[in-house]
């Protein structure tokens, strides 16, 4: 590890810290304020869109109605993206004349982009037309992110609203949240962001792929396309689906160290800001900062481990002193180096983004363990836009329940009692991860359809299986690589994992919001369990780690952990 390496990491974190309050305040104004920015320009657009969604009256919804609206919209999304891919050979903006996408792959991709996962079993440049990329995927990048923010806001409203004497049942309106998030937050930022990316050399065209003769005299096809417009939302919406197969390692997607820094920063920007929005909703910004602090602790633990692991030489070449001194550079771009690659891997898996600028498969065992664990902790280390906040809030409910009793009161959060019903919903939420990740991995590890896709044997192969289902269920979308996921078995099981990891978790979260929103608020006093200080931050970190570690430690010890010890003994896979 070097000083320069660490200063990159600290610079990155400083930027995130700096944006949290202003952006969080802006988000609060957009979603909870009485008037939205630029009412003359964007106001009419909002009204037209709301009318289109049948929500012109902006009437608030109960959790059931909110969930139904979200599910209906998502069903529409899955179907439209599926059809777009199946019919792309008949549609315009297909200069390469790419054929229709196969049914399993189209299902997988539709599920992937609807759930904000952006797992890619396809290679963008060789599979999808510009229309499929723009109207299907980029569109989903926007709305799935906005929908995630909506769910987080609904849950936040459930905790923070103070019911009047006539009670409180509603959590906001899904369509209003969806449209405001897209219109006032994602679109304007991405507009500027895309222009910045173009200025740095990211592509933005509709050209056919040119053939070039390289310096050595070989022939090469250069993939083209409207990259910058998709790249911006890919990061800001923690989507992560690259325009090209190589994702953010591709020079046309992420050309310079500056774009690399901005890309990482834009992954964390909204998730970090939402903690502050939450604090403002709770009427106590320290509540938000406590969440931010817990996330930061986990972030630093991850990045330090990954960076330290990657500075060690790859066990396969450890004997070659010249190579070993550079640390583990296999699968990394020289223009980013160890620190920015380890940082990118940590950030993208903390935040359920899934963009990659290096091959996680090539990381040292413990370096590869970090992205895996980040995801398995529930995507709560800043997490996906919205998903991170509602995920950590579920962990807060668990923490408050487990330890809250120790102050001699029945558990409460922000003055609202956590009772049997909330516990049931929180546990349903928690169960989805082990059910899908461990359940599917256990099947894939023993049946031929699963194992035949592996490139590597032994513990590394297990990590590949585990990583795929973790990434899918956690709606991350990054790939460990080394696994041929474009087979009917993998496309379908991963598609199910993604859908389960999104909607089977969102519905309990919204139900929890619905059950909390009407609860009476007990004013805080000296006997109240404090949830806005360092003590609580520490507790929250322990609960996140223990719940995650206890669930996945056995299988991790058969994967990256045993691989680490074997590598130490000179056995590599």
């Amino acid at each position, binding site marked *: 590890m070097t000083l320069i390496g660490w200063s990159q990491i600290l610079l990155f974190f400083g930027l995130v810290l700096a944006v949290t309050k202003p952006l969080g305040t802006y988000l609060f104004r957009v979603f909870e304020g009485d008037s939205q920015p630029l009412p003359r320009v964007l106001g009419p657009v909002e009204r037209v869109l709301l009318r289109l969604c049948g929500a012109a009256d902006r009437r608030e919804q109960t959790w059931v109605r909110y969930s139904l609206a979200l599910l209906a919209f998502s069903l529409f999304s899955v179907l439209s993206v599926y059809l777009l891919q199946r019919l792309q050979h008949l549609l315009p903006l297909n200069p390469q004349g790419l054929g229709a996408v196969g049914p399993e792959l189209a299902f997988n991709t539709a599920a992937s982009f609807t759930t904000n996962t952006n797992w890619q079993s396809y290679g963008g440049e060789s599979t999808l037309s510009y229309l499929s990329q723009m109207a299907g995927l980029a569109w989903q990048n926007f709305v799935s992110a906005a929908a995630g923010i909506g769910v987080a806001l609904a849950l936040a409203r459930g905790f923070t609203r103070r019911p009047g004497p006539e009670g409180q049942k509603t959590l906001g309106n899904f369509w209003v949240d969806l449209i405001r998030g897209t219109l006032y937050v994602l679109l304007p930022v991405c507009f500027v962001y895309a222009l910045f990316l173009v200025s740095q050399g990211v592509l933005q065209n509709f050209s056919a792929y040119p053939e070039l003769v390289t310096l050595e005299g070989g022939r090469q096809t250069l993939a083209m396309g409207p990259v910058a417009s998709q790249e911006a939302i890919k990061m800001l919406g923690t989507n992560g689906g690259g325009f090209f197969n190589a994702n953010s390692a591709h020079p046309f997607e992420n050309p310079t160290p500056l774009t690399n820094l901005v890309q990482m920063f834009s992954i964390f920007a909204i998730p970090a800001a939402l903690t502050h929005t939450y604090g403002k909703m709770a009427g106590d910004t320290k509540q938000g900062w406590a969440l931010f602090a817990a996330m930061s602790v986990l972030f630093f633990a991850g990045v330090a481990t990954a960076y330290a692991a990657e500075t060690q030489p790859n066990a396969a070449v450890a004997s070659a002193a010249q190579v070993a001194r550079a640390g583990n550079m296999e699968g990394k771009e020289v223009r980013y180096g160890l620190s920015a690659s380890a940082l990118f891997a940590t950030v993208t898996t903390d935040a359920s983004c899934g963009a990659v600028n290096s091959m996680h498969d090539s990381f040292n065992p413990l370096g590869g363990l970090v992205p895996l664990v980040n995801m398995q902790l529930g995507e709560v280390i800043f997490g996906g836009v919205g998903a991170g906040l509602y995920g950590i809030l579920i962990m807060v409910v668990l923490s408050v329940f487990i330890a*809250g*009793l120790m102050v001699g009161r029945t558990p409460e959060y922000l003055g609202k009692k956590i009772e049997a019903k909330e516990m049931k919903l929180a546990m349903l939420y928690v*169960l989805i991860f*082990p059910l899908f990740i461990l359940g599917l991995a256990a099947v894939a590890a023993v049946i031929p359809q699963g194992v035949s896709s592996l490139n590597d044997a032994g513990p590394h192969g297990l990590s590949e299986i585990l990583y795929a289902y973790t990434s899918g269920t956690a709606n991350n979308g990054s790939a460990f690589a080394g696994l041929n996921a474009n087979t009917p078995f993998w496309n379908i099981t991963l598609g199910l994992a993604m859908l389960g990891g999104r909607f089977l978790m969102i519905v309990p979260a919204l139900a929890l919001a619905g059950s909390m929103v009407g609860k009476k608020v007990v004013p805080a006093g*000296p006997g109240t369990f*404090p949830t806005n200080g360092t003590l609580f931050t520490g507790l929250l970190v322990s609960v996140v780690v223990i719940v995650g570690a206890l669930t996945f430690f056995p*299988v991790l*010890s*058969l994967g990256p952990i045993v691989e680490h010890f074997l590598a130490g003994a000179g*056995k590599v896979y």
Partner: protein
Amino acid sequence: MSPAASKPASLLDVSLLKPALRDSLKKLHPRDVARNPVMFVVWAGSLLTTVLVVKDLVAPRPDAAPLWFTVSVTLWLWFTVLFANFAEAVAEGRGKAQAGALRKMRKDTTARRMVDGREERVPAPDLRKGDLVACEAGDLIPGDGEVVEGIASVDESAITGESAPVIRESGGDRSAVTGGTKVLSDRIVVRISVNPGESFLDRMIGLVEGAARQKTPNEIALHILLVGLTIVFLLACVTLVPLALYSGVPLSGTAVVALLVCLIPTTIGGLLSAIGIAGMDRLLRKNVLAMSGRAVEAAGDVDTLLLDKTGTITLGNRMATELLPMPGIRMEELAEASQLASLADETPEGRSIVTLVKDTYKMRPHELQAHHATFVPFTAQTRMSGCDLVDPHPRGIRKGAVDAIVKHVQAQGGAVPAELVQAAGRIGDAGGTPLAVSDGARLLGIIHLKDVVKGGIKERFDRFRAMGIRTVMITGDNPRTAAAIAREAGVDDFLAEATPEAKLALIRTEQGRGKLVAMTGDGTNDAPALAQADVGVAMNTGTQAAKEAGNMVDLDSNPTKLLEVVEVGKQLLMTRGTLTTFSIANDVAKYFAILPALFMGVFPEMAPLNVMGLASPFSAILSAVIFNALIIIALIPLALRGVRYRPLGAAALLRRSLLLYGVGGVIVPFVGIKVIDVLLGAVGLV
């Protein structure tokens, strides 16, 4: 022996152990185990490993784990279930012992039922609601009821543990009698108010036996958490078999069950019901009878305490503390008049005046006879009392409420000095009660009656403030007086000139703000407020209506008991929290014991993960299982006794508990498992 009078049985009383051991075996019945899902998983796991042992015995396989290992693990898994059963049985056993004593008391009572003015002897269980029974000195009162005729002193020690007899009389707030208590003097007629099986004693037996016990709301929520965690670990362990198979690691059924049992929260799962029963039991030892576990839990959550001033915050009676003569009146004259006016006054206030005059002004009490005095008693109309003298010259001495005396003096043509109103105002401001004294048409002065705040009460309220609980004093006094006493006693707020309606309204307002309210009460007019309060503690001396309305009865009728009730509630919740935290934190060490043991056969390179340096894979797994079982036994005393509550404020309390049970919970099993491993090695088992 009575429940209350009995010495608190030591935690593991030998006489209770035998039945508890028998009960823990009985509780192995699937019907009983199924009520606790966590222990049910252990039970099913034990059954599975037993089958595996039998299979190994019948058809030994060469690659199987050694028989001594599978047999020991199986045994210790069964012990885990038994230990959890034992914890519950011990908690129940303590209740049952008390119930047994109570039941003995209920037997062989014969009642003297009054039918048409005649008495007939019937066994107590034949009595019905509405029957009239006569009780004389020496009789046991055959059932709960109300005194409708007569007055008697009653020994209620069987219920309350208090040996001093109490007075029970018809009418008023002291008319309720409890079945099983003994009449010491006089004769009363009691109207029975409950049918057999519903009496106070019956309910008490049901409660202490745990027969009437239902899971409380928080207990249910905690159960859901534990079941959820159990399912998570079930998934983790079941999927581990195929995942290990992929890695070429064959896992034996015994080892997987051992891992599962060690990971699921057996510690808290096994002790949860014992904690609940013990909480009720602890309250009973403080002579408070909770009608439901829900009420005990709610007591921990109480935000606002409503306390009656009289008897709780101040000593029951006001005391005369000084005499203030009006200008031109000698102190001796006022003192003498005050004494004469109070000699025949048997109220505590009256007696305190006589005492004050005697002690402070060294005046011996006059003989009323010598003066041919006639005593004028207090009436609600005149609101004064005193005496009329004939010797040496006719005098009419009166004492009473200031406005009443003023009217009396003015009616006789006397003048009222301005100093009187000022003095009365001053006394009122200081929380006292002024009594004016007059002799004929002359106003002599004022007696200052003062409420005496109980010693140590202020410190108790400070403790409550530290807990985050607000105290509100309820009094019939005027606001000025109330404010002064409130200040002196250190309560946070007061409700003056309280009527039953005002009390009820106050509780509703507090609850409207989301607070939980506790109060005590004894009179019939307290019943609505007791019913409305989240925790309503009725005094045992109170009326039947009050007892029915509240959800707890204080057998000692000590209003300060509310403070202890709250502490017991908090203890109950804290004990659950600490054991849950401890249980979950334990898992870290168990992983480090079992996982390397499972995989090291195939991957010997994993040795560094065996941080405890356990002797062998078999010994590691067995040690973890033994630790897991023994920790339940080790924590039974804590579960029964409860974690000590300290009024430190939530933040400090949490820091302390997290350190002790969270961090401690991570460390303890590392040490414990290692020690067991060493011991196993020492006996040569591994």
